[in-house]
């Protein structure tokens, strides 16, 4: 049985030259995140026809290997990468650090040029609008799309997303209290004080046991909120930072549901990483932070790229929104070059996605090792 989606077979195959596992991983992820073209890195042991090559000219073997490759396979376009492109006039060179907004226009330009173009071609150093892709290279086919839809439908149907409204209910009350700097109490349905929110001090005092708190967080909409007019509440059992509380409280209110405030089909982005060592652990928070801090992506794309459980993503997004580090709408998309965006409605049906491999050689083994320490 062929386990790879057909999309893979229609991708442009890219051979890396002079790169270690980490650098290959960067390109592999960049290719997956690209929205218009389907590039795929040639993996070890594969013998497919190569469409183009990317060489790290700064690595110890990269330059020599690139020259050998260019000599032996002059018909295959080659893009060099270097911190000093001017040193390599014989290649088309992209200046490091490599960014999505410069990489893909450079690759598109490369495909438009004859592979054995004169050495005096100017180095590719800046982004420019990508020319139309050659007809023969169009990767997406109806068969591939159908295959992809079948594959996704087995896991999750975006039309069945359950939503909650953060602008209604207890979360809205808590957020309002924080915004307006109003000391507030949260009580359980029996009227017992659980938390005092002290926005002026950036603190939340806890008065319930951990059992009572956990129970309350399983159904936060039943909690009561009132203005904290009393100073005599006894001694708090412990206290936490306001951000820490808002993170876990927002995730608890979400309970695996998507916030109505956050667009499912449009890009979102993390303004900064959450301080994950001091916040309540949420599943996949490290991976999601890395992905969404790197570049904007819609929640739908994030689920498909990272193969995370939608509920885990929705909780993470709600928590990040709760502490004010999630950007969406114009704030998120302003950092995306126009040549990297596609209409949201076409995102699900036209892009090809290769599921991530569960094991990525060195990085996968290192991750497993550290996680198991």
């Amino acid at each position, binding site marked *: 049985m062929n386990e790879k989606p057909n999309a893979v077979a229609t991708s442009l195959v890219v051979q890396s030259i002079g790169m*270690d596992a*980490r650098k290959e991983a960067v390109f592999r*992820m960049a290719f997956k995140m690209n929205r218009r073209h389907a590039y795929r890195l040639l993996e070890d042991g594969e013998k497919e026809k190569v469409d183009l090559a990317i060489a790290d000219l700064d690595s110890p073997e990269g330059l020599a290997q690139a020259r050998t490759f260019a000599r032996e396979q002059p018909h295959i376009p080659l893009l060099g990468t270097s911190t000093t492109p001017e040193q390599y006039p014989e290649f088309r060179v992209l200046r490091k*650090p490599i960014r999505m907004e410069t990489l893909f226009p450079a690759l598109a330009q490369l495909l438009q040029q004859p592979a054995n173009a004169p050495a005096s071609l100017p180095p590719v150093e800046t982004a420019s609008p990508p020319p139309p892709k050659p007809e023969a290279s169009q990767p997406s086919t109806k068969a591939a799309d159908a295959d992809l839809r079948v594959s996704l439908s087995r896991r999750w149907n975006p039309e069945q997303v359950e939503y909650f409204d953060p602008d209604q209910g207890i979360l809205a009350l808590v957020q309002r209290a924080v915004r307006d700097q109003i000391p507030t109490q949260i009580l359980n349905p029996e009227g017992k004080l659980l938390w005092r929110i002290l926005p002026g001090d950036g603190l939340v005092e806890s008065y319930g046991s951990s059992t009572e708190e956990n129970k309350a967080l399983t159904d936060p909409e039943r909690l009561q909120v009132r203005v904290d007019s009393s100073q005599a509440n006894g001694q708090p059992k412990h206290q936490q930072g306001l951000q820490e509380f808002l993170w876990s409280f927002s995730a608890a209110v979400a309970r695996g549901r998507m916030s109505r405030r956050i667009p499912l089909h449009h890009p979102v982005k993390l303004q900064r990483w959450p301080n994950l*060592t001091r916040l309540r652990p949420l599943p996949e928070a490290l991976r999601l932070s890395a992905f969404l801090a790197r570049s904007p992506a819609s929640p739908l794309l994030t689920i498909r790229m990272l193969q995370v459980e939608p509920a885990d993503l929705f909780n993470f997004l709600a928590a990040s929104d709760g502490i004010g580090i999630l950007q969406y709408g114009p704030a998120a998309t302003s950092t995306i070059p126009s040549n990297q965006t596609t209409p949201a409605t076409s995102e699900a049906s036209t892009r090809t996605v290769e599921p*991530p491999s569960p094991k990525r050689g060195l990085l996968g083994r290192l991750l497993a*090792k*550290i*996680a198991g*320490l």
Partner: protein
Amino acid sequence: MREDNKIVFTGPVGAGKTSAIAVLSDVPIISTDAKASDMTINRKGHTTVAMDYGILHLGEKSKVHLYGTPGQERFDFMWDILTTGGLGLVLMLDNTRPNPKKDMHFFLHAFKNYISDVPVVIGISKTDLAPRPTTTEYAEMFAEVSQDLQMLNPVPPIFEVDGRNKEDIKNLVMALLFSIDPGIGAAV
């Protein structure tokens, strides 16, 4: 395919680099501590004068080398040697030092060539002794001090850490790995 399996820990004296490597290493770390003889003595009695070295074994054939740079600036000639190749940079900052922003600026610029090619993660230590600057404030400082840098990950993780706490260091290094490739280890 060539693999440079190396993670470099850097930061000022006393920020917790040696402790962090000790937490991760499969073998007792090789440390080149010596009695401090300069201003360092005000912060700790012994300090790393050459480098720390630890190993993470990944099966029989591969391993990841963990290097800690000496914190004093006069040893910066060694840093280029340590950072040739590698997976990424862990910058540990001590929140009790007089000017953490200056430290951040110094170390990011000292490694500017390296971090154009590999990701960086930032661990803030001793926040129990000095709660400010907060990680939010560090993120704001970072935006200022990195303006002239070309970084592979221009929005790096900034976590509070205790260098002796295994979970903190695990999370910091896992954040480094996910910064290289958020797809690693994903369920299919």
